[in-house]
């Protein structure tokens, strides 16, 4: 429990969450706008 709290305090700060949000948004923009023959898996 203490380890979990330490992990959250160390890594899940606002900058990390904002980075995850930005990366997911950029991925979503590329995947939703793009149209290759496989969106995920297999190609």
């Amino acid at each position, binding site marked *: 429990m203490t380890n979990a709290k330490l992990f959250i305090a160390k890594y899940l700060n606002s900058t990390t969450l*904002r980075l995850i949000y930005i990366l997911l948004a950029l991925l979503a923009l590329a*995947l*939703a706008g793009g149209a290759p023959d496989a969106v995920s898996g297999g*190609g």
Partner: protein
Amino acid sequence: MILAAAVLSAVLIGLVRGGSLRRLASLPLRWAWVALAAFGLQIYLIYFPEPVNEGIASPRVGVLVFSYALLFVVIWQNRALPGVWLIGLGVLSNFAVMMLNGGYMPITSEALAQVGHSANILSPEPGARVRATKDIVLPRDQTIAWWLSDIFVLPPPFPIPSVFSVGDVLIALGAFWLIQNGMCANEKETRAVGQG
């Protein structure tokens, strides 16, 4: 997959160039949640496709059009950021060829065979959907604006065999530019552009 790989490799190249993830986190991307919503809307169409395209007036194509409308809002909101205009051009290119061909991205069965994805074709009829894509199978001579459709083939032994369009290339280049700028450019510069 190829576009996800492009985005992730842009981040890795940014790190190799000495760029910062902290700086990328401060990228002033406006209305980013709308891009997530647009992709969320497309998940059903991509992973639960009808066997054959039901036509431009079908509810599924309506959802696809709405998701692209959301993307154009995000692109317009972020037009001042470097690379976003290139992403916009790519999205517009894909959207145009999809609308000209019944609502989905045309691809030939030959191109799918070249990358070993023929088993994903859901019907032998023309206009068949392709599993896990926004594609429909159309012969080249029945495709309007063929040059904007999925024409570039990266066959095996390329690790991610793929067929993609001019629009996909523009989106990958724009995302690369945006990420490199977000990770490596002066932070004040990026913020100023975002507020401009």
